[in-house]
């Protein structure tokens, strides 16, 4: 693990190295070098399995974080590659040439976050949301409660209790 980290630190300008566990480390790198780093890890360091490709919306920093988690089935270590892209343009290099299922992940990210991956197969086809016409639902400025109330006929009479207050009232009514 250490040797791999030191090696990619020299080659790919990685920063912000977080050691989560003995067998799991997350590194951050520049957007332009992310796919190159993933390719290097896959082909040279034998991280042959992509565990997931996901995104986080950092609306305060006006950025999307994209994370690739790779696994080496022989030495049983994981490595996470993190990169930040601009939230307005929201374009990232496609990595579908490395694993076929990356195209599906990218299709999902395109639908849920509006991140574009030019050249990725079937990127514009709908994945889960058929005929969605609002802003992508995983963006943090999308008000899911408001959308649900406007769209799905909420049943009246639904309330909620603060559990602590409710149990206090129920168990100790005289206090």
């Amino acid at each position: 693990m250490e040797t791999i980290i030191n090696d990619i630190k020299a080659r790919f300008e990685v920063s912000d190295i977080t050691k989560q566990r003995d067998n799991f480390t997350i590194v951050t790198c520049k957007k332009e070098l992310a796919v190159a780093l993933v390719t290097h890890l896959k082909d040279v360091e034998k991280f042959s399995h992509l565990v997931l490709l996901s995104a986080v919306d950092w609306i305060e920093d006006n950025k999307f974080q994209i994370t690739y988690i790779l696994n080496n089935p022989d030495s049983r270590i994981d490595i996470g590659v993190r990169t930040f892209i601009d939230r307005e343009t929201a374009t990232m290099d496609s990595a579908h040439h490395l694993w076929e299922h990356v195209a599906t992940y990218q299709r999902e990210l395109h639908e849920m976050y509006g991140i574009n991956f030019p050249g990725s197969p079937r990127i514009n086809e709908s994945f889960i949301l058929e005929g969605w016409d609002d802003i992508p639902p995983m963006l943090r400025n999308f008000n899911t409660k408001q959308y649900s109330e406007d769209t799905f006929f909420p049943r009246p009479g639904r309330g909620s209790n603060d559990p602590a207050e409710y149990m206090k009232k129920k168990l100790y009514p005289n206090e």
Partner: protein
Amino acid sequence: MSNIDNIENKFPNKDFERRTVIGPDGVKFEIDPIDDYFSDARPKVIAPKNKVIEKFLNWARAESLWVLGFGTGCGSIEIPPLMTPRFDAFRFGVQMRATPRQSSVIIISGYLAVKTLKRVIRSYEQMPSPKYVLALGSCTINGGMYWDSYNTINRLDHYIPVDVYVAGCMPRPEALLAGFEKLKKRIKAGNGEGANEYAEKFDWYKGNQKKIIKDWNMPDYNW
């Protein structure tokens, strides 16, 4: 919708094209295969027959509930134990069927995404009437824990008529058996008129369905 065009171009189906066929005796006739699959006719209300016959028919319907094998949410995992020896729903005349055209009951087992609702509506409309709907879990009643989700419906009874609700999250197979018993009582009392209700309030149901299914690329009614 550019998506739909893409998909149609990708999987062109020659079998669905209009064509002229020459019969074995040399007679030419036109066929439109879509007509064999879909219908644009509205569903009709089927009035009950006279009291005695209807009572007998309802008894027969109630004692032989054929359930469509269609799982929508987490509740579909309750169906296998229901049919296997521990709970053994066959005792109550309940059995699973593979296709909508053979079944009389559809179980909506839990949360329903908009994408699944589209398939539910197609399956429901293909079932021969009289047909019954058993809604399982709190998600079908008021949205349950997905009440504020952008992609799951809140009230099932706005999209298809529901006969029996089984509350719980998730209800156990015993509760489901109790739900079947209640459905039987309802059918025997002559109240299982969901299919007629669907036909009567067809425009209201279609309006609600089309409000949330934005890419309506299927016929208005299919049997």
